[in-house]
C-alpha cells in the first residue's frame, strides 16, 4: 500500500495522518536535498525522520502508529550501478523496565510459582523491522554484535549470583519473548521496511495503549555486503498530557492529599447516590 492510502485508512486518528504527511514531506525534501550536496558521498549515509517526535496520551488514547521515513545513501551508487543494494533494519526500543518471570510447577496437586528469573533493565517495548529476513543480511556474528533481531537483542538477566544474557533457546528467555509478544509489546517483522524508491524507505510500527510512557529510541542500521555501513539513532517520547497528566502529577507529588481527595470524592458520590435514589 502507498502512504496516502494507508493514511486514509487510518484517518480516524487525525494526529497520525498529519504527522505522516509531515514525515513524508520531510523525507521527500531530504531525498532532494542530499544529491544537491554536490560530490558523491564517500561513505554510506543514512537520514531518518520519525512522524511524531512526541506522542501525547489523552483520555481517548488507545495506542499510536508511527512512521519512520529514511533515505539510504550508498557510496558510489552512480559510478558502480551494480553495487550491492542496501538492507535496512529499524529497531525501536522503549523505556527500560525490570521483570520477574515465574515458572509454575505442580506441588501437591497445585500449580505454584516455583522458579524465577529476573530480567534487568530490558526494553519494555521492542520492535524490529527489516526489508528482508535479517538472517539473510549478514553473518550470525555481525548480527549478534550489532544486536539485530529479537533473539539477538541483549536481555540482561540475574541467573543466581551472575548477571548475563543466556542462549536464545533458554526456556525463560523464550517465555519472556512470547509473553511480551502476546501483549504486542515485542514484535519482529522481516518485511516491515519497504523501499518507496531505490534509496527511500519507510516503515510503520504500532505502539499498544498499554506501552509505558517515556523515551523510545529508534535505531536504524544500513547493511551492505553483510556489514553495517551506516547507522542513525533518533528518538521520540510518549507523554501524558492534559487531564491524564494532571491526575498523574497530583498522585505523585501530593500522594496523601490525592488519597484524601479520592476518599472524600467517593463519599460524596456515595452520598449523592443515596440521596438521588432515596425512597420517601
Amino acid at each position, binding site marked *: 500500500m502507498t502512504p496516502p492510502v494507508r493514511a486514509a485508512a487510518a484517518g480516524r486518528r487525525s494526529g497520525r495522518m498529519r504527522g505522516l504527511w509531515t514525515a513524508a514531506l520531510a523525507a521527500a525534501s531530504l531525498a532532494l536535498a542530499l544529491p544537491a550536496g554536490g560530490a558523491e558521498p564517500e561513505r554510506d549515509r543514512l537520514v531518518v525522520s520519525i512522524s511524531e517526535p512526541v506522542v501525547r*496520551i*489523552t*483520555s*481517548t*488514547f*488507545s*495506542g499510536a502508529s508511527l512512521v519512520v521515513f529514511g533515505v539510504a545513501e550508498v557510496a558510489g551508487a552512480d559510478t558502480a550501478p551494480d553495487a550491492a543494494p542496501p538492507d535496512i533494519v529499524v529497531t525501536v526500543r522503549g*523505556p*527500560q*523496565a*525490570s*521483570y*520477574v*518471570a*515465574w*515458572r*509454575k*510447577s505442580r506441588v501437591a*496437586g*497445585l*500449580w*505454584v*510459582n516455583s522458579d524465577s528469573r*529476573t530480567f534487568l*533493565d530490558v526494553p*519494555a517495548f521492542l520492535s524490529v523491522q527489516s526489508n528482508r529476513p535479517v538472517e539473510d543480511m549478514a553473518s550470525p556474528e555481525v548480527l549478534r554484535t550489532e544486536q539485530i533481531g529479537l533473539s539477538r537483542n541483549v536481555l540482561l538477566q540475574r541467573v543466581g549470583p551472575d548477571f548475563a544474557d543466556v542462549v536464545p533457546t533458554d526456556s*525463560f528467555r523464550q*517465555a519472556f519473548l*512470547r*509473553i*511480551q509478544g502476546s501483549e504486542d509489546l515485542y514484535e519482529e517483522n522481516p518485511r516491515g521496511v519497504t523501499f518507496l524508491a531505490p534509496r527511500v524507505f519507510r516503515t510503520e510500527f504500532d505502539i499498544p*495503549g*498499554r506501552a*509505558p510512557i*517515556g523515551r523510545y529510541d529508534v535505531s536504524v542500521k544500513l547493511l551492505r555486503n553483510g556489514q553495517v555501513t551506516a547507522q542513525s539513532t533518533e528518538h521520540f517520547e510518549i507523554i*501524558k498530557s492534559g*487531564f*491524564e*497528566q494532571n*491526575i*498523574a502529577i497530583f*498522585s*505523585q507529588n501530593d*500522594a*496523601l492529599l*490525592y*488519597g484524601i481527595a*479520592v*476518599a472524600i*470524592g*467517593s*463519599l460524596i*458520590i*456515595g*452520598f*449523592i*447516590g*443515596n440521596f438521588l*435514589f*432515596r425512597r420517601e
Partner: protein
Amino acid sequence: MTIYLPIAELPVAIFSVFAMGLAVGFISGMFGVGGGFLMTPLLIFTGVPPTVAVASVSPYMAASSFSGALSYLRKGMVDLPLAGVLLIGGLVGTLAGVLLFLWLRIIGQVDLAIRLAYTVLLGTIGTMMLVESVRAIRRTRRGAAPVVRRPGTHAWFMRLPLKMRFRRSRIYVSAIPVVGIGFMIGLLGAVLGVGGGFILVPALIYLLRVPTTTSVGTSLVLTLVTMAAATVLHAEANGTVDAVLAFVLMIGGTMGAQFGARTGQTMRPENLRFLLGLLVLAVGLRVAVDLVRHPSDLYVLTTIEVRR
C-alpha cells in the same frame, strides 16, 4: 469507546467497566456486601495490574458502602459500638495484612496465597451459607416456625472475659471474639483486596448471633471506614489508586446498588442467603479450578519497575 487510565497506564473499554460497576453494585446492594471479592478479580481479568485493581476498588467500596450505610443509619439498623470494637481489631489486622503481603511478595507466593485463601475462605463460607439457608427454606416450606433466638445458648468464645453489652444487636458477649473477627477481616482485606463484608456478615449472624439487618448495617459502616483508610494508605504508600477507574466504577456501582437493594427487599431472607451462598461458592470454585488445572502458559511475567 476506550478511556485511558492515568495511573494504571492503559486504555480500557469505558462501557464494560461501567457495566462491571453496575453488575457488582447490583449484587452488593442485594446482599449487603461490598462486592470486592467479585470486582478485584474482574478488574485483574480486564488487564488492570493487580496492585492498581486492589487499590482502586477501595474508593469504589467506600462509596457504595457509604451509600448503603446511610440508609441503614436512618432506619436505626447500625450498631455503632459494635462497629467501633470490630474496628479496633480491624486496624491491627490491616497492619498485619500489609506486612504479610510484603513478605509473600518477597518469596514470590502472593499469587498462590491469594488463590488458596480465596478457595478455602469462599468454599467454606459458601458451603456453610448454602447448608443453613436450605435448612431454613425447608423449614418454611413445612410451615414450621422459624428458630427462635435462645439467649442462653452461648458458645464458649462468647463467655470469655471482658464482656460487653451491644444494645442494638441485643447481645452480651466478650469483646475478645469481636476484636478477633475484626482482626481477621482487616488481615484478609489487606491481603486479598476485599472489604470483607461477605465474611463479616455471616460471622456476625452465625458466630455472634447479631440480627441479620443489624449485621448488614454494621458491616457496611466497618467497610466504609476501612476502605476510606485503605484508599489513603494505598495512595500514600504505593501510589496505585486510579481516580478515573474508581470514578467510573463508582457511578455504575451506586446506581446498581439501588436497584439491587430494591430487589433484595422483595425476597425472603433465607432465599437471599441461599443465592449469596451459591455465588460465594461459585467464585471459590472458579479460583480452585485455576489452581488445579494445567495452566495454558507455565510462565507468568510481573513487572517490577519501569524507568522513566
